Protein backbone atom coordinates (compact mmCIF):
# COMPACT_ATOMS: atom_id res chain seq x y z
CA UNK A 1 0.00 0.00 0.00
CA UNK A 2 2.67 2.40 1.09
CA UNK A 3 4.84 1.32 -1.76
CA UNK A 4 1.96 1.96 -4.06
CA UNK A 5 1.45 5.37 -2.56
CA UNK A 6 5.11 6.28 -2.82
CA UNK A 7 5.33 5.16 -6.36
CA UNK A 8 2.15 6.92 -7.33
CA UNK A 9 2.82 9.87 -9.58
CA UNK A 10 1.46 12.59 -7.31
CA UNK A 11 3.71 11.52 -4.48
CA UNK A 12 6.77 11.41 -6.60
CA UNK A 13 5.80 14.76 -7.96
CA UNK A 14 5.26 16.09 -4.46
CA UNK A 15 8.57 14.77 -3.16
CA UNK A 16 10.40 16.09 -6.12
CA UNK A 17 8.84 19.48 -5.67
CA UNK A 18 9.33 19.80 -1.95
CA UNK A 19 12.77 18.48 -1.25
CA UNK A 20 14.83 17.76 -4.24
CA UNK A 21 14.58 20.74 -6.47
CA UNK A 22 15.98 24.16 -6.03
CA UNK A 23 15.86 27.33 -7.98
CA UNK A 24 19.58 27.63 -8.64
CA UNK A 25 21.35 30.89 -9.19
CA UNK A 26 24.88 30.94 -10.39
CA UNK A 27 27.03 33.31 -8.34
CA UNK A 28 30.65 33.03 -9.34
CA UNK A 29 31.57 29.40 -8.86
CA UNK A 30 28.71 28.79 -6.48
CA UNK A 31 25.23 27.62 -7.07
CA UNK A 32 22.92 29.28 -4.56
CA UNK A 33 19.33 28.44 -3.74
CA UNK A 34 17.45 31.38 -5.17
CA UNK A 35 14.11 30.59 -3.57
CA UNK A 36 15.70 30.66 -0.11
CA UNK A 37 17.38 33.97 -0.80
CA UNK A 38 14.18 35.50 -2.13
CA UNK A 39 12.16 34.57 0.95
CA UNK A 40 15.07 35.58 3.20
CA UNK A 41 15.07 39.00 1.60
CA UNK A 42 11.35 39.25 2.08
CA UNK A 43 11.74 38.29 5.74
CA UNK A 44 14.53 40.83 6.20
CA UNK A 45 12.42 43.41 4.40
CA UNK A 46 9.48 42.73 6.68
CA UNK A 47 11.65 43.09 9.76
CA UNK A 48 13.36 46.26 8.56
CA UNK A 49 10.08 47.77 7.45
CA UNK A 50 8.42 46.91 10.75
CA UNK A 51 11.31 48.48 12.66
CA UNK A 52 11.22 51.55 10.47
CA UNK A 53 7.48 51.97 10.86
CA UNK A 54 7.63 51.41 14.59
CA UNK A 55 10.39 53.96 15.08
CA UNK A 56 9.22 56.51 12.53
CA UNK A 57 6.97 58.36 14.95
CA UNK A 58 8.22 57.59 18.41
CA UNK A 59 5.93 58.59 21.22
CA UNK A 60 6.84 58.70 24.83
CA UNK A 61 3.82 56.59 25.66
CA UNK A 62 4.06 53.79 23.09
CA UNK A 63 0.76 53.17 21.37
CA UNK A 64 -0.21 50.76 18.64
CA UNK A 65 2.60 49.31 16.58
CA UNK A 66 5.37 50.93 18.57
CA UNK A 67 3.98 49.29 21.67
CA UNK A 68 3.95 45.92 19.91
CA UNK A 69 7.53 46.24 18.71
CA UNK A 70 8.71 47.38 22.11
CA UNK A 71 7.05 44.31 23.56
CA UNK A 72 9.00 42.21 21.05
CA UNK A 73 12.22 43.96 21.98
CA UNK A 74 11.58 43.32 25.66
CA UNK A 75 10.96 39.68 24.84
CA UNK A 76 14.28 39.19 23.05
CA UNK A 77 16.03 41.18 25.74
CA UNK A 78 14.52 38.76 28.22
CA UNK A 79 15.97 35.78 26.29
CA UNK A 80 19.45 37.28 26.36
CA UNK A 81 19.16 38.42 29.97
CA UNK A 82 17.98 35.05 31.23
CA UNK A 83 20.85 33.16 29.61
CA UNK A 84 23.78 35.57 29.74
CA UNK A 85 23.03 37.36 32.97
CA UNK A 86 22.09 40.86 33.95
CA UNK A 87 25.65 42.17 33.80
CA UNK A 88 26.80 41.00 30.40
CA UNK A 89 23.70 40.59 28.29
CA UNK A 90 23.45 44.05 26.75
CA UNK A 91 25.98 43.77 23.92
CA UNK A 92 24.47 40.43 22.89
CA UNK A 93 20.87 41.58 22.62
CA UNK A 94 21.20 42.57 18.93
CA UNK A 95 22.68 39.21 17.95
CA UNK A 96 20.31 37.03 19.94
CA UNK A 97 17.36 39.24 19.07
CA UNK A 98 18.14 39.14 15.36
CA UNK A 99 18.42 35.35 15.49
CA UNK A 100 15.07 35.03 17.20
CA UNK A 101 13.26 37.52 15.02
CA UNK A 102 14.69 36.21 11.77
CA UNK A 103 13.93 32.60 12.57
CA UNK A 104 10.52 33.37 14.00
CA UNK A 105 9.41 35.55 11.11
CA UNK A 106 10.87 33.08 8.61
CA UNK A 107 8.96 30.22 10.16
CA UNK A 108 5.69 32.06 10.42
CA UNK A 109 5.86 33.66 7.01
CA UNK A 110 6.72 30.26 5.60
CA UNK A 111 3.60 28.82 7.19
CA UNK A 112 1.20 31.72 6.84
CA UNK A 113 1.92 33.11 3.37
CA UNK A 114 0.51 31.05 0.52
CA UNK A 115 3.84 30.90 -1.28
CA UNK A 116 2.61 28.26 -3.67
CA UNK A 117 0.53 30.89 -5.40
CA UNK A 118 3.76 32.07 -6.94
CA UNK A 119 5.39 29.73 -9.34
CA UNK A 120 9.10 29.94 -9.83
CA UNK A 121 11.05 28.14 -12.52
CA UNK A 122 12.16 25.36 -10.19
CA UNK A 123 11.52 24.38 -6.61
CA UNK A 124 9.14 26.48 -4.56
CA UNK A 125 9.17 29.37 -2.15
CA UNK A 126 9.12 28.34 1.50
CA UNK A 127 10.53 29.27 4.87
CA UNK A 128 14.29 29.92 4.57
CA UNK A 129 14.82 27.99 7.79
CA UNK A 130 13.57 24.88 6.01
CA UNK A 131 16.78 24.90 4.02
CA UNK A 132 19.84 23.35 5.63
CA UNK A 133 22.12 26.07 4.26
CA UNK A 134 20.32 28.79 6.18
CA UNK A 135 20.31 26.93 9.46
CA UNK A 136 23.95 25.90 9.13
CA UNK A 137 24.87 29.50 8.44
CA UNK A 138 22.97 30.64 11.51
CA UNK A 139 24.50 27.91 13.66
CA UNK A 140 28.02 28.74 12.48
CA UNK A 141 27.35 32.37 13.33
CA UNK A 142 26.43 31.23 16.81
CA UNK A 143 29.66 29.22 17.04
CA UNK A 144 31.69 32.21 15.94
CA UNK A 145 29.81 34.40 18.38
CA UNK A 146 30.45 32.24 21.41
CA UNK A 147 34.10 31.70 20.53
CA UNK A 148 34.44 35.44 20.10
CA UNK A 149 32.69 36.02 23.42
CA UNK A 150 34.96 33.60 25.27
CA UNK A 151 38.20 34.68 23.60
CA UNK A 152 37.54 38.38 23.92
CA UNK A 153 36.72 37.89 27.60
CA UNK A 154 39.53 35.57 28.69
CA UNK A 155 41.99 35.54 25.82
CA UNK A 156 43.61 32.17 25.20
CA UNK A 157 42.77 31.26 28.79
CA UNK A 158 39.36 30.44 27.40
CA UNK A 159 40.71 27.11 26.23
CA UNK A 160 41.86 26.19 29.72
CA UNK A 161 38.31 25.15 30.52
CA UNK A 162 38.79 22.28 28.08
CA UNK A 163 41.28 20.59 30.39
CA UNK A 164 40.27 22.04 33.69
CA UNK A 165 38.05 19.24 34.96
CA UNK A 166 40.26 16.53 33.59
CA UNK A 167 42.60 16.34 30.57
CA UNK A 168 40.78 13.19 29.55
CA UNK A 169 37.69 15.25 28.86
CA UNK A 170 39.47 17.31 26.23
CA UNK A 171 38.15 15.26 23.29
CA UNK A 172 34.63 15.65 24.63
CA UNK A 173 34.97 19.40 24.86
CA UNK A 174 36.36 19.60 21.36
CA UNK A 175 33.62 17.32 20.15
CA UNK A 176 31.06 19.55 21.78
CA UNK A 177 32.24 22.53 19.78
CA UNK A 178 31.30 20.56 16.68
CA UNK A 179 28.07 19.13 17.99
CA UNK A 180 26.74 22.48 19.09
CA UNK A 181 26.34 23.98 15.62
CA UNK A 182 25.40 20.58 14.26
CA UNK A 183 22.55 20.09 16.70
CA UNK A 184 21.42 23.71 16.38
CA UNK A 185 21.23 23.61 12.62
CA UNK A 186 19.70 20.13 12.31
CA UNK A 187 17.10 20.78 14.98
CA UNK A 188 15.78 23.90 13.30
CA UNK A 189 16.06 22.56 9.78
CA UNK A 190 14.47 19.25 10.67
CA UNK A 191 11.56 20.77 12.53
CA UNK A 192 10.65 23.28 9.88
CA UNK A 193 11.12 20.94 6.95
CA UNK A 194 9.21 18.17 8.69
CA UNK A 195 6.37 20.54 9.44
CA UNK A 196 6.26 21.69 5.84
CA UNK A 197 6.37 18.12 4.58
CA UNK A 198 3.61 16.94 6.89
CA UNK A 199 1.41 19.83 5.90
CA UNK A 200 2.26 19.27 2.27
CA UNK A 201 1.43 15.59 2.43
CA UNK A 202 -1.83 16.23 4.23
CA UNK A 203 -2.78 18.93 1.76
CA UNK A 204 -2.01 16.54 -1.01
CA UNK A 205 -4.20 13.82 0.46
CA UNK A 206 -7.04 15.89 1.93
CA UNK A 207 -6.91 19.48 0.75
CA UNK A 208 -9.43 20.95 3.19
CA UNK A 209 -9.60 21.24 7.01
CA UNK A 210 -7.63 18.12 7.87
CA UNK A 211 -4.25 19.88 7.71
CA UNK A 212 -5.50 22.64 10.02
CA UNK A 213 -4.51 21.02 13.35
CA UNK A 214 -1.11 20.16 11.95
CA UNK A 215 -0.69 23.70 10.67
CA UNK A 216 -1.58 25.12 14.08
CA UNK A 217 0.83 22.71 15.68
CA UNK A 218 3.37 23.80 13.08
CA UNK A 219 2.96 27.45 14.04
CA UNK A 220 3.44 26.49 17.65
CA UNK A 221 6.55 24.43 16.87
CA UNK A 222 7.97 27.18 14.69
CA UNK A 223 7.72 29.67 17.52
CA UNK A 224 9.23 27.18 19.95
CA UNK A 225 12.08 26.42 17.56
CA UNK A 226 12.91 30.10 17.17
CA UNK A 227 12.86 30.44 20.93
CA UNK A 228 15.03 27.34 21.41
CA UNK A 229 17.57 28.43 18.83
CA UNK A 230 18.02 31.90 20.25
CA UNK A 231 17.94 30.67 23.85
CA UNK A 232 20.63 28.07 23.14
CA UNK A 233 22.71 30.65 21.27
CA UNK A 234 22.46 33.00 24.23
CA UNK A 235 23.24 30.19 26.64
CA UNK A 236 26.37 29.17 24.69
CA UNK A 237 27.52 32.77 24.72
CA UNK A 238 26.75 33.06 28.41
CA UNK A 239 28.63 29.85 29.11
CA UNK A 240 31.66 31.12 27.21
CA UNK A 241 31.62 34.41 29.10
CA UNK A 242 31.07 32.86 32.49
CA UNK A 243 33.77 31.55 34.81
CA UNK A 244 35.58 28.30 34.10
CA UNK A 245 33.81 25.03 33.53
CA UNK A 246 32.00 24.73 36.84
CA UNK A 247 28.64 25.14 35.19
CA UNK A 248 27.09 21.84 34.40
CA UNK A 249 26.77 20.47 30.97
CA UNK A 250 23.67 21.59 29.20
CA UNK A 251 20.96 19.14 28.28
CA UNK A 252 19.08 19.63 25.13
Amino acid at each position, binding site marked *: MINQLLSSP*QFANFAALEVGKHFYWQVGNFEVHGQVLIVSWIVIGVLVLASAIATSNIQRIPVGFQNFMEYGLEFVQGIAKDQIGEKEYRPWVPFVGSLFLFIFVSNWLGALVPWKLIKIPEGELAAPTGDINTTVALALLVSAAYFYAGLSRKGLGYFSKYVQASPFLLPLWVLEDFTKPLSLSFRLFGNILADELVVGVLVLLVPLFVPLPVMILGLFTSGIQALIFSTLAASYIGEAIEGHGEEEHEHH
Partner: protein
Amino acid sequence: MINNLFTFSGFLVATETAEHSGFGINTDIFQTNLINILIILALLIYSGRGFLGKILSERLANIESAIKDAESRKLKAAEELGDKQKKLAEVQAECDRLRLQAEVNAKSAGEAILATIAEDIERLKSSATQDLANEQERVIMQLRQQVVQKSLLQVKAYFDQGLSESTQQELVDRSISLLVSGESK
Protein backbone atom coordinates in the same frame (compact mmCIF):
# COMPACT_ATOMS: atom_id res chain seq x y z
CA MET B 1 -10.13 10.13 -5.87
CA ILE B 2 -9.60 9.20 -9.43
CA ASN B 3 -10.37 12.76 -10.32
CA ASN B 4 -7.80 13.87 -7.79
CA LEU B 5 -5.24 11.53 -9.17
CA PHE B 6 -5.95 12.88 -12.52
CA THR B 7 -5.47 16.47 -11.48
CA PHE B 8 -2.28 15.61 -9.65
CA SER B 9 -0.77 13.84 -12.58
CA GLY B 10 -1.95 16.75 -14.61
CA PHE B 11 -0.13 19.03 -12.24
CA LEU B 12 2.99 16.99 -12.66
CA VAL B 13 2.87 17.74 -16.31
CA ALA B 14 2.05 21.34 -15.53
CA THR B 15 5.08 21.72 -13.31
CA GLU B 16 7.27 20.01 -15.82
CA THR B 17 6.27 22.64 -18.28
CA ALA B 18 6.36 25.38 -15.65
CA GLU B 19 9.98 24.61 -14.91
CA HIS B 20 10.87 26.00 -18.21
CA SER B 21 8.33 28.75 -18.39
CA GLY B 22 9.75 30.74 -15.48
CA PHE B 23 7.70 32.73 -13.03
CA GLY B 24 3.94 32.64 -12.89
CA ILE B 25 0.91 32.31 -10.71
CA ASN B 26 -0.54 29.04 -9.57
CA THR B 27 -4.31 29.33 -9.59
CA ASP B 28 -5.06 25.89 -8.17
CA ILE B 29 -6.65 26.84 -4.85
CA PHE B 30 -6.47 23.35 -3.33
CA GLN B 31 -2.91 22.77 -4.40
CA THR B 32 -1.75 26.09 -2.97
CA ASN B 33 -3.42 25.38 0.38
CA LEU B 34 -4.96 28.84 0.18
CA ILE B 35 -8.15 28.07 2.08
CA ASN B 36 -6.40 26.45 5.01
CA ILE B 37 -3.97 29.33 5.26
CA LEU B 38 -6.79 31.84 5.20
CA ILE B 39 -8.59 29.92 7.94
CA ILE B 40 -5.41 29.83 10.02
CA LEU B 41 -4.87 33.53 9.49
CA ALA B 42 -8.44 34.29 10.52
CA LEU B 43 -8.07 32.12 13.61
CA LEU B 44 -4.78 33.74 14.44
CA ILE B 45 -6.13 37.25 14.07
CA TYR B 46 -9.28 36.37 15.98
CA SER B 47 -7.52 34.78 18.94
CA GLY B 48 -4.34 36.82 18.74
CA ARG B 49 -6.13 40.13 18.78
CA GLY B 50 -7.68 39.45 22.16
CA PHE B 51 -4.58 37.87 23.66
CA LEU B 52 -2.04 40.27 22.27
CA GLY B 53 -4.41 43.19 22.76
CA LYS B 54 -4.68 42.39 26.42
CA ILE B 55 -0.92 42.11 26.86
CA LEU B 56 -0.28 45.31 24.94
CA SER B 57 -2.96 47.31 26.69
CA GLU B 58 -1.63 46.09 30.03
CA ARG B 59 1.85 47.13 29.02
CA LEU B 60 0.51 50.49 27.89
CA ALA B 61 -1.28 50.98 31.18
CA ASN B 62 1.85 50.04 33.10
CA ILE B 63 3.97 52.47 31.14
CA GLU B 64 1.37 55.19 31.46
CA SER B 65 1.12 54.77 35.19
CA ALA B 66 4.91 54.63 35.49
CA ILE B 67 5.26 57.82 33.49
CA LYS B 68 2.51 59.50 35.45
CA ASP B 69 4.13 58.42 38.66
CA ALA B 70 7.50 59.72 37.52
CA GLU B 71 5.96 62.96 36.36
CA SER B 72 4.16 63.51 39.63
CA ARG B 73 7.36 62.78 41.46
CA LYS B 74 9.17 65.22 39.22
CA LEU B 75 6.53 67.84 39.89
CA LYS B 76 6.80 67.24 43.59
CA ALA B 77 10.56 67.45 43.42
CA ALA B 78 10.36 70.68 41.45
CA GLU B 79 7.94 72.06 44.01
CA GLU B 80 10.24 71.06 46.79
CA LEU B 81 13.14 72.59 44.95
CA GLY B 82 11.24 75.87 44.58
CA ASP B 83 10.36 75.75 48.23
CA LYS B 84 13.91 75.14 49.22
CA GLN B 85 15.14 77.84 46.88
CA LYS B 86 12.72 80.29 48.40
CA LYS B 87 13.96 79.31 51.81
CA LEU B 88 17.51 79.71 50.65
CA ALA B 89 16.75 83.19 49.37
CA GLU B 90 15.11 84.02 52.67
CA VAL B 91 18.07 82.74 54.58
CA GLN B 92 20.39 84.71 52.34
CA ALA B 93 18.39 87.87 52.90
CA GLU B 94 18.48 87.20 56.61
CA CYS B 95 22.17 86.62 56.32
CA ASP B 96 22.66 89.91 54.51
CA ARG B 97 20.58 91.70 57.07
CA LEU B 98 22.58 90.18 59.90
CA ARG B 99 25.84 91.07 58.24
CA LEU B 100 24.71 94.66 57.73
CA GLN B 101 23.59 94.88 61.32
CA ALA B 102 26.82 93.38 62.47
CA GLU B 103 28.76 95.91 60.47
CA VAL B 104 26.76 98.75 61.98
CA ASN B 105 27.20 97.26 65.42
CA ALA B 106 30.89 96.86 64.86
CA LYS B 107 31.20 100.47 63.74
CA SER B 108 29.29 101.87 66.68
CA ALA B 109 31.12 99.61 69.07
CA GLY B 110 34.41 100.78 67.60
CA GLU B 111 33.38 104.39 67.96
CA ALA B 112 32.27 103.84 71.55
CA ILE B 113 35.52 102.13 72.34
CA LEU B 114 37.49 104.92 70.70
CA ALA B 115 35.52 107.50 72.72
CA THR B 116 36.13 105.73 76.01
CA ILE B 117 39.77 105.35 75.12
CA ALA B 118 40.06 109.09 74.48
CA GLU B 119 38.34 109.72 77.78
CA ASP B 120 40.68 107.32 79.49
CA ILE B 121 43.66 109.00 77.93
CA GLU B 122 42.36 112.34 79.09
CA ARG B 123 41.80 111.00 82.58
CA LEU B 124 45.17 109.34 82.72
CA LYS B 125 46.83 112.53 81.50
CA SER B 126 45.12 114.63 84.17
CA SER B 127 45.90 112.14 86.89
CA ALA B 128 49.48 112.01 85.71
CA THR B 129 49.82 115.81 85.89
CA GLN B 130 48.21 115.76 89.32
CA ASP B 131 50.61 113.07 90.43
CA LEU B 132 53.47 115.14 89.07
CA ALA B 133 52.32 118.24 90.98
CA ASN B 134 51.89 116.24 94.19
CA GLU B 135 55.30 114.76 93.83
CA GLN B 136 56.80 118.19 93.15
CA GLU B 137 55.16 119.58 96.27
CA ARG B 138 56.36 116.66 98.32
CA VAL B 139 59.87 117.03 97.03
CA ILE B 140 59.84 120.75 97.74
CA MET B 141 58.55 120.10 101.25
CA GLN B 142 61.27 117.55 101.78
CA LEU B 143 63.89 119.96 100.50
CA ARG B 144 62.58 122.66 102.79
CA GLN B 145 62.71 120.37 105.75
CA GLN B 146 66.19 119.30 104.83
CA VAL B 147 67.32 122.94 104.51
CA VAL B 148 65.72 123.84 107.85
CA GLN B 149 67.31 120.86 109.52
CA LYS B 150 70.65 121.71 108.04
CA SER B 151 70.46 125.33 109.17
CA LEU B 152 69.27 124.22 112.58
CA LEU B 153 72.24 121.93 112.79
CA GLN B 154 74.51 124.78 111.79
CA VAL B 155 72.91 127.02 114.35
CA LYS B 156 73.30 124.32 116.95
CA ALA B 157 76.91 123.87 116.02
CA TYR B 158 77.40 127.58 116.14
CA PHE B 159 75.83 127.63 119.57
CA ASP B 160 77.90 124.70 120.66
CA GLN B 161 81.02 126.69 119.83
CA GLY B 162 79.93 128.97 122.64
CA LEU B 163 78.80 132.55 122.66
CA SER B 164 80.79 135.47 124.03
CA GLU B 165 79.57 137.28 127.06
CA SER B 166 78.70 140.39 125.20
CA THR B 167 76.81 138.56 122.63
CA GLN B 168 74.84 136.68 125.24
CA GLN B 169 74.10 139.92 126.92
CA GLU B 170 73.04 141.43 123.73
CA LEU B 171 70.79 138.48 122.98
CA VAL B 172 69.16 138.54 126.32
CA ASP B 173 68.59 142.23 125.97
CA ARG B 174 67.09 141.83 122.60
CA SER B 175 64.84 139.06 123.85
CA ILE B 176 63.71 141.12 126.73
CA SER B 177 63.06 144.08 124.50
CA LEU B 178 61.17 141.81 122.22
CA LEU B 179 59.11 140.49 125.07
CA VAL B 180 58.45 143.95 126.28
CA SER B 181 57.49 145.24 122.92
CA GLY B 182 55.30 142.16 122.50
CA GLU B 183 53.62 142.78 125.88
CA SER B 184 53.07 146.44 125.08
CA LYS B 185 51.35 145.51 121.97
